[in-house]
Protein backbone atom coordinates (compact mmCIF):
# COMPACT_ATOMS: atom_id res chain seq x y z
CA UNK A 1 0.00 0.00 0.00
CA UNK A 2 2.72 2.47 0.99
CA UNK A 3 4.69 1.85 -2.21
CA UNK A 4 1.43 2.48 -4.07
CA UNK A 5 1.21 5.94 -2.44
CA UNK A 6 4.79 6.62 -3.53
CA UNK A 7 3.91 5.57 -7.09
CA UNK A 8 0.73 7.71 -7.14
CA UNK A 9 2.72 10.71 -5.92
CA UNK A 10 5.48 10.09 -8.47
CA UNK A 11 2.91 10.00 -11.27
CA UNK A 12 1.12 13.07 -9.93
CA UNK A 13 4.41 15.01 -9.88
CA UNK A 14 5.11 14.02 -13.50
CA UNK A 15 1.58 14.92 -14.64
CA UNK A 16 1.86 18.39 -13.06
CA UNK A 17 5.46 18.89 -14.22
CA UNK A 18 4.95 17.90 -17.85
CA UNK A 19 1.54 19.58 -17.84
CA UNK A 20 3.35 22.80 -16.93
CA UNK A 21 5.88 22.29 -19.74
CA UNK A 22 3.06 21.87 -22.24
CA UNK A 23 1.43 25.28 -21.55
CA UNK A 24 2.25 28.25 -23.80
CA UNK A 25 1.22 30.98 -21.35
CA UNK A 26 4.40 31.78 -19.41
CA UNK A 27 2.60 32.86 -16.25
CA UNK A 28 0.49 29.70 -16.05
CA UNK A 29 3.51 27.56 -16.90
CA UNK A 30 5.42 29.04 -13.92
CA UNK A 31 2.43 28.55 -11.61
CA UNK A 32 2.07 24.87 -12.50
CA UNK A 33 5.84 24.39 -12.36
CA UNK A 34 5.82 25.74 -8.78
CA UNK A 35 3.03 23.33 -7.87
CA UNK A 36 5.05 20.47 -9.35
CA UNK A 37 8.08 21.48 -7.24
CA UNK A 38 5.93 21.18 -4.11
CA UNK A 39 4.61 17.80 -5.29
CA UNK A 40 8.23 16.69 -5.71
CA UNK A 41 8.91 17.72 -2.10
CA UNK A 42 5.92 15.61 -1.05
CA UNK A 43 7.48 12.69 -2.88
CA UNK A 44 10.71 13.19 -0.93
CA UNK A 45 8.81 13.40 2.37
CA UNK A 46 6.94 10.19 1.64
CA UNK A 47 10.23 8.54 0.59
CA UNK A 48 11.88 9.60 3.84
CA UNK A 49 8.92 8.31 5.85
CA UNK A 50 9.17 4.94 4.07
CA UNK A 51 12.92 4.74 4.71
CA UNK A 52 12.38 5.45 8.41
CA UNK A 53 9.74 2.71 8.54
CA UNK A 54 12.10 0.40 6.61
CA UNK A 55 9.50 -0.10 3.88
CA UNK A 56 10.88 -0.96 0.44
CA UNK A 57 9.73 1.34 -2.35
CA UNK A 58 10.55 1.91 -6.01
CA UNK A 59 10.15 4.30 -8.90
CA UNK A 60 7.82 2.06 -10.91
CA UNK A 61 5.08 3.95 -12.70
CA UNK A 62 2.45 3.36 -15.32
CA UNK A 63 3.05 4.55 -18.87
CA UNK A 64 1.44 7.96 -18.57
CA UNK A 65 -0.66 9.48 -21.28
CA UNK A 66 -0.01 13.16 -20.64
CA UNK A 67 -1.39 14.54 -23.88
CA UNK A 68 -4.24 17.04 -23.55
CA UNK A 69 -5.66 19.16 -26.36
CA UNK A 70 -6.04 22.43 -24.48
CA UNK A 71 -5.38 24.17 -21.15
CA UNK A 72 -8.85 23.58 -19.77
CA UNK A 73 -8.65 19.85 -20.42
CA UNK A 74 -5.27 19.85 -18.63
CA UNK A 75 -6.57 21.80 -15.60
CA UNK A 76 -9.61 19.51 -15.30
CA UNK A 77 -7.40 16.43 -15.56
CA UNK A 78 -5.02 17.70 -12.86
CA UNK A 79 -7.90 18.52 -10.51
CA UNK A 80 -9.25 14.99 -10.97
CA UNK A 81 -5.84 13.39 -10.37
CA UNK A 82 -5.31 15.46 -7.22
CA UNK A 83 -8.74 14.46 -5.90
CA UNK A 84 -8.30 10.80 -6.86
CA UNK A 85 -4.97 10.52 -5.04
CA UNK A 86 -6.74 11.29 -1.73
CA UNK A 87 -8.11 7.79 -1.35
CA UNK A 88 -4.58 6.46 -0.93
CA UNK A 89 -3.53 8.95 1.76
CA UNK A 90 -3.24 8.01 5.42
CA UNK A 91 -4.55 9.84 8.44
CA UNK A 92 -1.21 11.21 9.65
CA UNK A 93 0.22 14.73 10.13
CA UNK A 94 2.42 14.18 7.04
CA UNK A 95 -0.55 13.52 4.77
CA UNK A 96 -2.55 16.33 6.39
CA UNK A 97 0.22 18.71 5.33
CA UNK A 98 0.16 17.23 1.82
CA UNK A 99 -3.65 17.55 1.63
CA UNK A 100 -3.46 21.22 2.68
CA UNK A 101 -1.06 21.97 -0.17
CA UNK A 102 -3.13 20.03 -2.68
CA UNK A 103 -6.35 21.75 -1.59
CA UNK A 104 -4.71 25.01 -2.59
CA UNK A 105 -3.65 23.61 -5.99
CA UNK A 106 -7.21 22.41 -6.62
CA UNK A 107 -8.70 25.80 -5.76
CA UNK A 108 -6.15 27.60 -7.99
CA UNK A 109 -6.72 25.23 -10.92
CA UNK A 110 -10.49 25.59 -10.49
CA UNK A 111 -10.05 29.34 -10.66
CA UNK A 112 -7.93 29.09 -13.84
CA UNK A 113 -10.70 27.02 -15.39
CA UNK A 114 -13.22 29.73 -14.60
CA UNK A 115 -11.20 32.82 -15.41
CA UNK A 116 -8.54 31.98 -18.01
CA UNK A 117 -9.45 31.80 -21.67
CA UNK A 118 -8.89 28.37 -23.12
CA UNK A 119 -5.80 27.90 -25.31
CA UNK A 120 -4.81 24.94 -27.47
CA UNK A 121 -1.81 22.84 -26.44
CA UNK A 122 0.63 22.25 -29.29
CA UNK A 123 3.36 20.51 -27.29
CA UNK A 124 2.52 17.10 -28.77
CA UNK A 125 1.73 17.89 -32.40
CA UNK A 126 5.10 16.51 -33.66
CA UNK A 127 5.73 19.49 -35.93
CA UNK A 128 9.46 19.54 -35.06
CA UNK A 129 9.91 23.20 -35.93
CA UNK A 130 11.76 25.44 -33.50
CA UNK A 131 9.91 28.78 -33.33
CA UNK A 132 11.67 31.66 -35.10
CA UNK A 133 14.64 29.49 -36.07
CA UNK A 134 15.51 28.42 -39.54
CA UNK A 135 17.11 25.04 -38.84
CA UNK A 136 18.00 22.55 -41.56
CA UNK A 137 16.65 18.99 -41.38
CA UNK A 138 19.95 17.51 -40.06
CA UNK A 139 20.09 20.28 -37.43
CA UNK A 140 16.52 19.53 -36.37
CA UNK A 141 17.31 15.80 -36.22
CA UNK A 142 20.42 16.41 -34.09
CA UNK A 143 18.51 18.70 -31.76
CA UNK A 144 15.61 16.25 -31.46
CA UNK A 145 17.85 13.32 -30.56
CA UNK A 146 19.89 15.38 -28.11
CA UNK A 147 16.83 16.71 -26.30
CA UNK A 148 15.22 13.26 -26.01
CA UNK A 149 18.42 11.69 -24.76
CA UNK A 150 19.28 14.39 -22.23
CA UNK A 151 15.72 14.83 -21.02
CA UNK A 152 15.57 11.20 -19.94
CA UNK A 153 19.06 11.47 -18.45
CA UNK A 154 18.13 14.47 -16.29
CA UNK A 155 14.98 12.72 -15.03
CA UNK A 156 17.10 9.67 -14.22
CA UNK A 157 19.64 11.79 -12.31
CA UNK A 158 16.92 13.55 -10.29
CA UNK A 159 15.52 10.20 -9.18
CA UNK A 160 18.89 8.54 -8.53
CA UNK A 161 20.31 11.42 -6.47
CA UNK A 162 17.05 11.76 -4.54
CA UNK A 163 17.01 8.02 -3.80
CA UNK A 164 20.68 8.05 -2.73
CA UNK A 165 20.05 11.08 -0.56
CA UNK A 166 17.27 9.27 1.28
CA UNK A 167 19.72 6.57 2.32
CA UNK A 168 22.77 8.62 3.34
CA UNK A 169 23.68 9.90 6.81
CA UNK A 170 26.60 11.94 5.49
CA UNK A 171 25.65 15.66 5.58
CA UNK A 172 28.25 16.73 3.00
CA UNK A 173 27.18 14.03 0.59
CA UNK A 174 23.55 14.92 1.16
CA UNK A 175 24.23 18.60 0.34
CA UNK A 176 26.00 17.61 -2.88
CA UNK A 177 23.09 15.36 -3.91
CA UNK A 178 20.63 18.19 -3.25
CA UNK A 179 22.60 20.60 -5.44
CA UNK A 180 22.85 17.98 -8.20
CA UNK A 181 19.07 17.40 -8.02
CA UNK A 182 18.47 21.17 -8.35
CA UNK A 183 20.85 21.35 -11.30
CA UNK A 184 19.12 18.47 -13.06
CA UNK A 185 15.71 19.99 -12.35
CA UNK A 186 16.88 23.11 -14.18
CA UNK A 187 18.20 21.11 -17.13
CA UNK A 188 15.03 19.01 -17.31
CA UNK A 189 12.95 22.19 -17.33
CA UNK A 190 15.06 23.80 -20.06
CA UNK A 191 15.11 20.74 -22.34
CA UNK A 192 11.43 19.94 -21.81
CA UNK A 193 10.39 23.48 -22.68
CA UNK A 194 12.36 23.15 -25.91
CA UNK A 195 10.70 19.80 -26.66
CA UNK A 196 7.35 21.45 -25.98
CA UNK A 197 8.11 24.32 -28.36
CA UNK A 198 8.98 21.78 -31.06
CA UNK A 199 5.79 19.77 -30.46
CA UNK A 200 7.57 16.60 -29.28
CA UNK A 201 7.13 16.68 -25.52
CA UNK A 202 6.85 13.30 -23.78
CA UNK A 203 7.36 11.82 -20.32
CA UNK A 204 10.51 9.82 -19.62
CA UNK A 205 10.37 6.04 -19.51
CA UNK A 206 10.44 4.10 -16.22
CA UNK A 207 13.83 3.56 -14.61
CA UNK A 208 15.07 0.01 -14.20
CA UNK A 209 15.62 -0.72 -10.51
CA UNK A 210 19.31 -1.48 -10.86
CA UNK A 211 19.85 2.14 -11.97
CA UNK A 212 19.06 3.48 -8.49
CA UNK A 213 19.48 0.43 -6.28
CA UNK A 214 23.22 0.00 -6.51
CA UNK A 215 25.72 -1.12 -3.91
CA UNK A 216 28.84 0.72 -5.02
CA UNK A 217 28.49 4.50 -4.69
CA UNK A 218 32.10 5.06 -5.72
CA UNK A 219 31.59 3.26 -9.02
CA UNK A 220 28.31 5.10 -9.56
CA UNK A 221 30.08 8.46 -9.17
CA UNK A 222 32.97 7.42 -11.41
CA UNK A 223 30.50 6.31 -14.10
CA UNK A 224 28.57 9.53 -13.56
CA UNK A 225 31.68 11.64 -14.18
CA UNK A 226 32.26 9.75 -17.43
CA UNK A 227 28.68 10.40 -18.48
CA UNK A 228 28.95 14.10 -17.66
CA UNK A 229 32.10 14.29 -19.76
CA UNK A 230 30.25 12.60 -22.65
CA UNK A 231 27.34 15.03 -22.20
CA UNK A 232 29.82 17.93 -22.39
CA UNK A 233 31.06 16.63 -25.73
CA UNK A 234 27.49 16.27 -26.99
CA UNK A 235 26.68 19.85 -25.96
CA UNK A 236 29.76 21.19 -27.71
CA UNK A 237 29.04 19.15 -30.83
CA UNK A 238 25.45 20.37 -30.92
CA UNK A 239 26.49 23.99 -30.29
CA UNK A 240 28.78 23.70 -33.35
CA UNK A 241 26.25 21.90 -35.55
CA UNK A 242 23.26 24.08 -34.78
CA UNK A 243 24.86 27.27 -36.18
CA UNK A 244 22.41 29.54 -34.38
CA UNK A 245 23.82 32.12 -32.03
CA UNK A 246 21.11 31.87 -29.38
CA UNK A 247 20.84 28.06 -29.31
CA UNK A 248 24.62 27.57 -29.58
CA UNK A 249 25.19 29.90 -26.66
CA UNK A 250 22.61 27.95 -24.60
CA UNK A 251 24.34 24.62 -25.30
CA UNK A 252 27.76 26.13 -24.50
CA UNK A 253 26.30 27.30 -21.19
CA UNK A 254 25.04 23.79 -20.47
CA UNK A 255 28.48 22.47 -21.37
CA UNK A 256 30.08 24.75 -18.76
CA UNK A 257 27.51 23.67 -16.18
CA UNK A 258 28.59 20.06 -16.67
CA UNK A 259 32.07 21.12 -15.42
CA UNK A 260 30.45 22.18 -12.16
CA UNK A 261 28.63 18.84 -11.92
CA UNK A 262 31.90 16.98 -12.44
CA UNK A 263 33.51 19.04 -9.63
CA UNK A 264 30.58 18.23 -7.35
CA UNK A 265 30.83 14.53 -8.12
CA UNK A 266 34.55 14.59 -7.44
CA UNK A 267 33.79 16.25 -4.10
CA UNK A 268 31.27 13.48 -3.43
CA UNK A 269 33.91 10.87 -4.23
CA UNK A 270 36.01 12.16 -1.32
CA UNK A 271 33.09 11.43 1.01
CA UNK A 272 32.64 7.75 0.08
Amino acid at each position, binding site marked *: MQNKIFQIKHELWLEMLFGSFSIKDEKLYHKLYDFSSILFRHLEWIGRDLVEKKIVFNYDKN*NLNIETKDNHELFAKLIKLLKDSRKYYENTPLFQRIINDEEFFISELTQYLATHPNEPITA*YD*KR*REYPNKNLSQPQKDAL*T*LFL*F*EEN*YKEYELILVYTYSNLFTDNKNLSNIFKILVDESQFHLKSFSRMLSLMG*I*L*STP*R*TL*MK*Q*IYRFGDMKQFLLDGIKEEEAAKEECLRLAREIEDEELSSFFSFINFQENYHIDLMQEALKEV
Partner: protein
Amino acid sequence: MEQTKEQKREALKDEYIDHMMNPRNYGVIENYSGKGVGNNPNNNEMVEMYISVEKEVLMNLKYQAIGCTTTVAGASIFTDMICGETLEEAVSVTKQVLKKLETAPEEDRACGEMVVMSFLASLKNYENRKTGDEKECKMNIVNDCPTEELEDAK
Protein backbone atom coordinates in the same frame (compact mmCIF):
# COMPACT_ATOMS: atom_id res chain seq x y z
CA MET B 1 -2.26 8.83 -54.76
CA GLU B 2 1.14 7.18 -54.49
CA GLN B 3 3.64 8.71 -52.07
CA THR B 4 6.91 10.15 -53.33
CA LYS B 5 10.20 8.87 -51.88
CA GLU B 6 10.53 12.09 -49.92
CA GLN B 7 7.02 11.67 -48.45
CA LYS B 8 7.74 8.03 -47.56
CA ARG B 9 10.96 9.05 -45.81
CA GLU B 10 9.12 11.77 -43.86
CA ALA B 11 6.34 9.32 -42.90
CA LEU B 12 8.97 6.88 -41.68
CA LYS B 13 10.64 9.64 -39.64
CA ASP B 14 7.28 10.65 -38.14
CA GLU B 15 6.66 7.04 -37.16
CA TYR B 16 10.09 6.84 -35.56
CA ILE B 17 9.48 10.08 -33.61
CA ASP B 18 6.19 8.64 -32.44
CA HIS B 19 8.00 5.57 -31.07
CA MET B 20 10.48 7.89 -29.32
CA MET B 21 7.67 9.89 -27.73
CA ASN B 22 5.47 6.90 -26.89
CA PRO B 23 7.53 3.71 -26.73
CA ARG B 24 5.23 0.71 -27.15
CA ASN B 25 5.48 -2.36 -24.91
CA TYR B 26 7.82 -0.74 -22.37
CA GLY B 27 7.63 -2.54 -19.02
CA VAL B 28 7.64 -5.95 -17.42
CA ILE B 29 5.53 -9.14 -17.72
CA GLU B 30 5.20 -10.62 -14.23
CA ASN B 31 4.23 -14.16 -15.32
CA TYR B 32 6.46 -14.41 -18.34
CA SER B 33 7.16 -17.49 -20.46
CA GLY B 34 10.70 -16.33 -21.17
CA LYS B 35 13.04 -13.56 -20.10
CA GLY B 36 16.33 -12.61 -21.71
CA VAL B 37 18.99 -9.93 -21.63
CA GLY B 38 20.83 -8.39 -24.56
CA ASN B 39 23.97 -6.87 -23.16
CA ASN B 40 26.75 -4.54 -24.21
CA PRO B 41 29.71 -5.79 -22.13
CA ASN B 42 31.70 -2.62 -22.83
CA ASN B 43 29.39 -0.11 -21.19
CA ASN B 44 26.82 -2.23 -19.30
CA GLU B 45 23.96 -1.00 -21.45
CA MET B 46 21.27 -3.65 -21.71
CA VAL B 47 17.80 -4.58 -22.87
CA GLU B 48 15.71 -6.92 -20.74
CA MET B 49 13.03 -8.68 -22.80
CA TYR B 50 9.97 -10.52 -21.46
CA ILE B 51 7.83 -12.76 -23.65
CA SER B 52 4.50 -14.41 -23.10
CA VAL B 53 3.92 -17.43 -25.36
CA GLU B 54 0.73 -19.43 -25.91
CA LYS B 55 0.61 -22.34 -28.36
CA GLU B 56 3.88 -21.16 -29.92
CA VAL B 57 2.44 -17.68 -30.59
CA LEU B 58 3.96 -14.51 -29.10
CA MET B 59 0.97 -13.15 -27.22
CA ASN B 60 2.81 -10.33 -25.49
CA LEU B 61 6.29 -8.80 -25.29
CA LYS B 62 7.64 -6.19 -22.91
CA TYR B 63 11.07 -4.76 -22.42
CA GLN B 64 13.07 -2.41 -20.24
CA ALA B 65 16.36 -0.81 -21.14
CA ILE B 66 19.44 0.84 -19.79
CA GLY B 67 20.49 2.55 -22.96
CA CYS B 68 19.91 5.38 -25.37
CA THR B 69 16.81 6.66 -27.14
CA THR B 70 17.72 4.74 -30.31
CA THR B 71 17.68 1.48 -28.33
CA VAL B 72 14.28 2.23 -26.81
CA ALA B 73 12.69 3.36 -30.09
CA GLY B 74 14.23 0.32 -31.83
CA ALA B 75 12.83 -2.06 -29.22
CA SER B 76 9.45 -0.36 -29.50
CA ILE B 77 9.34 -0.89 -33.28
CA PHE B 78 10.73 -4.45 -33.08
CA THR B 79 8.31 -5.67 -30.39
CA ASP B 80 5.40 -4.05 -32.20
CA MET B 81 6.43 -5.86 -35.36
CA ILE B 82 6.62 -9.39 -33.93
CA CYS B 83 3.83 -9.32 -31.33
CA GLY B 84 1.10 -11.78 -32.40
CA GLU B 85 3.44 -13.73 -34.68
CA THR B 86 4.29 -17.42 -34.30
CA LEU B 87 7.73 -18.10 -32.85
CA GLU B 88 8.86 -19.39 -36.23
CA GLU B 89 7.79 -16.19 -37.97
CA ALA B 90 9.33 -14.05 -35.25
CA VAL B 91 12.67 -15.83 -35.63
CA SER B 92 12.50 -15.31 -39.38
CA VAL B 93 11.86 -11.56 -38.87
CA THR B 94 14.74 -11.47 -36.38
CA LYS B 95 17.12 -12.95 -38.97
CA GLN B 96 16.05 -10.31 -41.49
CA VAL B 97 16.60 -7.54 -38.94
CA LEU B 98 20.08 -8.88 -38.12
CA LYS B 99 20.88 -8.93 -41.86
CA LYS B 100 19.70 -5.32 -42.23
CA LEU B 101 21.75 -4.27 -39.22
CA GLU B 102 24.93 -5.37 -41.00
CA THR B 103 24.59 -2.34 -43.27
CA ALA B 104 23.08 0.04 -40.71
CA PRO B 105 25.03 3.11 -39.53
CA GLU B 106 27.63 2.08 -36.96
CA GLU B 107 26.01 4.11 -34.17
CA ASP B 108 22.65 2.35 -34.65
CA ARG B 109 24.03 -1.17 -35.08
CA ALA B 110 24.86 -1.84 -31.41
CA CYS B 111 21.46 -0.58 -30.24
CA GLY B 112 19.58 -2.73 -32.75
CA GLU B 113 21.71 -5.75 -32.00
CA MET B 114 21.09 -5.40 -28.27
CA VAL B 115 17.32 -5.48 -28.87
CA VAL B 116 17.50 -8.55 -31.11
CA MET B 117 19.87 -10.37 -28.72
CA SER B 118 17.50 -9.76 -25.82
CA PHE B 119 14.69 -11.38 -27.80
CA LEU B 120 16.85 -14.37 -28.79
CA ALA B 121 17.91 -14.74 -25.15
CA SER B 122 14.26 -14.68 -24.04
CA LEU B 123 13.49 -17.45 -26.56
CA LYS B 124 16.38 -19.50 -25.21
CA ASN B 125 15.10 -18.98 -21.68
CA TYR B 126 11.61 -20.03 -22.85
CA GLU B 127 13.00 -23.28 -24.30
CA ASN B 128 15.15 -23.91 -21.20
CA ARG B 129 12.21 -23.41 -18.87
CA LYS B 130 10.39 -26.24 -20.63
CA THR B 131 13.06 -28.54 -19.24
CA GLY B 132 13.00 -26.96 -15.79
CA ASP B 133 16.08 -24.78 -16.29
CA GLU B 134 15.11 -21.31 -14.98
CA LYS B 135 18.58 -19.77 -15.31
CA GLU B 136 18.67 -16.23 -16.76
CA CYS B 137 19.81 -16.05 -20.39
CA LYS B 138 22.10 -13.26 -21.42
CA MET B 139 23.62 -12.62 -24.85
CA ASN B 140 26.36 -10.12 -25.54
CA ILE B 141 26.45 -8.00 -28.67
CA VAL B 142 29.31 -8.24 -31.13
CA ASN B 143 29.34 -4.65 -32.41
CA ASP B 144 29.71 -1.60 -30.20
CA CYS B 145 28.88 2.08 -30.48
CA PRO B 146 31.76 4.10 -31.90
CA THR B 147 33.28 6.01 -28.97
CA GLU B 148 36.52 7.93 -28.63
CA GLU B 149 37.91 5.21 -26.34
CA LEU B 150 37.15 2.52 -28.90
CA GLU B 151 38.59 4.56 -31.73
CA ASP B 152 41.80 5.07 -29.70
CA ALA B 153 41.99 1.33 -29.00
CA LYS B 154 41.79 0.66 -32.73
